[in-house]
């Protein structure tokens, strides 16, 4: 890997030209930076640099109480805040040994799957934009707004939801959820159909994505891939099935698996996952309706949360992959150490291996298909 000299900005070495891509570059999603050594259009060496959105979240967590940290988790993967909240809450609940009531778990499932749809919609939309197809992005965003409306009307915020509390959720689903959901469901499907029509069987799209930055399952596991990127490589791993949490073992859904681990597979896996999420929400809502109306939403937790000293790791399947929280407590009201295991972090470090030898245009396609969210990458 180190045959070529490390690229540095501003210095061109021999036959190669160093191109500094980012951090303010349309394809770099604001905060990523790639220094690429190029031979014409093809990439000889790629050196990703991160940390442009390092906000010291882990350090911040040590100075806040357990509840105060929940809003900070919103700002990790800002495309879908709810899985972040739930993952953190689950970690603290595990540390305290608290069992969350079933109804609260179902509400969490419903909201998390909605967030998954929203996240995939953004990912696919941006992938389209980066490959030059602008229109699907707009179609997807329109439907995404409707999901936001549900979030907003449930949590009070569109993006940074601060959903749930440690030990359960703070509020029940409002009465007209069913109506809203029935309105939303066909619209999401419609937007997906339109996207499929515009992209999936489009010859140019296929040329641009099939076989681009393909990755083998073995490599993917070695690099610590999780989530859709791993499944695209052909590994059937989904924490929702393998290590069920939040009653996920009660739902029937398929886990889509790709073959080559290329951009197209990642795209298709995400498309199918959206459809599966719709099914999960249907089943979860059915279970939810069977619950008595006055079933508890919160477990018995003290007002000031002081977990016993100890350390736990708890993870869930966020839209990007395994999102885990390691919480270490020293018995006080503030966590001693919070470590966030972001899925992007592990995936993005394999980026040089994914794109070296390909063209600049492929770098863009690959990066968007990995769905790297700087907020959780840099924390």
């Amino acid at each position, binding site marked *: *890997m*180190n045959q070529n000299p490390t690229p540095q*900005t*501003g210095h061109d070495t021999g036959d190669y030209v160093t191109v500094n891509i980012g951090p303010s570059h349309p394809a770099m999603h604001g905060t990523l930076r790639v220094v690429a050594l190029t031979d014409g259009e093809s990439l000889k060496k790629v050196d990703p640099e*991160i*940390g442009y959105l*390092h906000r*010291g979240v*882990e*350090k*911040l967590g*040590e*100075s806040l109480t357990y509840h105060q940290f929940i809003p900070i988790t919103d700002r990790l993967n800002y495309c879908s805040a709810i899985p972040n909240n739930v993952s953190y809450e689950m970690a603290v609940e*595990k*540390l305290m*040994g608290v069992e969350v009531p079933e109804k609260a778990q179902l509400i969490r499932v419903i909201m998390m799957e909605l967030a998954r749809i929203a996240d995939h919609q953004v990912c696919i939309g941006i992938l389209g934009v980066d490959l030059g197809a602008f229109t699907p992005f707009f179609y997807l965003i329109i439907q995404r707004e409707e999901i936001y409306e549900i979030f907003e009307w449930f949590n009070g915020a569109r993006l940074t939801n601060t959903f749930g509390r440690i030990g359960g959720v703070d509020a029940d689903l409002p009465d007209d959820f069913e109506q809203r959901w029935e309105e939303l469901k066909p619209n999401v499907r419609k937007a997906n159909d339109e996207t499929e029509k515009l992209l999936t069987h489009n010859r140019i799209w296929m040329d641009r994505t099939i076989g681009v930055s393909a990755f083998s399952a073995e*490599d993917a*596991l*070695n*690099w*610590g891939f999780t989530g859709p990127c791993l499944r695209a490589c052909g590994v059937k*791993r989904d924490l929702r099935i*393998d*290590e069920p949490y939040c009653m996920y073992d009660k739902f029937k859904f398929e886990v889509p698996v790709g073959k080559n681990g290329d951009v197209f597979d990642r795209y298709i896996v995400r498309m199918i996952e959206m459809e599966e999420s719709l099914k999960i929400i249907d089943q979860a809502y059915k279970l939810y309706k069977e619950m008595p109306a006055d079933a508890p939403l919160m477990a018995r937790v003290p007002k000031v949360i002081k977990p016993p000293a*100890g*350390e*736990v*790791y708890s*993870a869930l399947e966020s839209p990007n992959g*395994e999102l*885990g929280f*390691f919480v*270490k407590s*020293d018995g006080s009201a503030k966590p*001693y*150490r919070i*470590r966030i*295991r972001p899925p992007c*972090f*592990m995936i*993005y*470090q*394999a980026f040089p291996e994914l794109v070296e030898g390909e063209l600049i245009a492929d770098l863009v396609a690959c990066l968007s298909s990995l769905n790297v969210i700087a907020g959780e990458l*840099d*924390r």
Partner: protein
Amino acid sequence: MDLKKRVEQCLGPDNLVVSMIECQGDLSVEVPKRSVVDVMRLLRDTPDLGFNFLSDLFGVDNLDLNKPKKKPTKKTEEGAETEEEPEEKGPFPPRYEVVYLLLCLERNERLQVKVRVEESDMEVDTLTPVWKAANWPEREVFDMFGIRFKGHPNLKRLLMWDDFPAHPLRKDYPLEGQGEERHLIYDD
């Protein structure tokens, strides 16, 4: 056979287990620092363990835990406050620890492996030959705690800029920083 026994069986004969703690079902094993790579290879390759996936790697600074705790002043029945004697200080445990989170994909078991790092010898063997996934997390640990990884292919700062003077996640580093400034000079 439960995980704890299997891990003991695997690592026990070579005296590779320093201690084992279980917290809410999470098993964590502390291993000696010098043999961390061997332990990882053993854990990965032993058939009935098969921890073939490195889920995460990070550091913890135990400075505040090692401090002798101030006992809360107790009011005696007479009302007079009596300061209790500080506890007998034992030898301080090493300040830092590096935690590896392993995962067995076949059995969906998780294991935490810990290495304790003395302040006087801040060097751990790198895990990159075993799992490529250890690359950036090790750089992050270096960035945030200053723990060096011997043999790492590209050990430089990951999240902070290159000439950042401190290691922010250390407990003695204030949250709002020590007034580090970024010079806004263009770099060419």
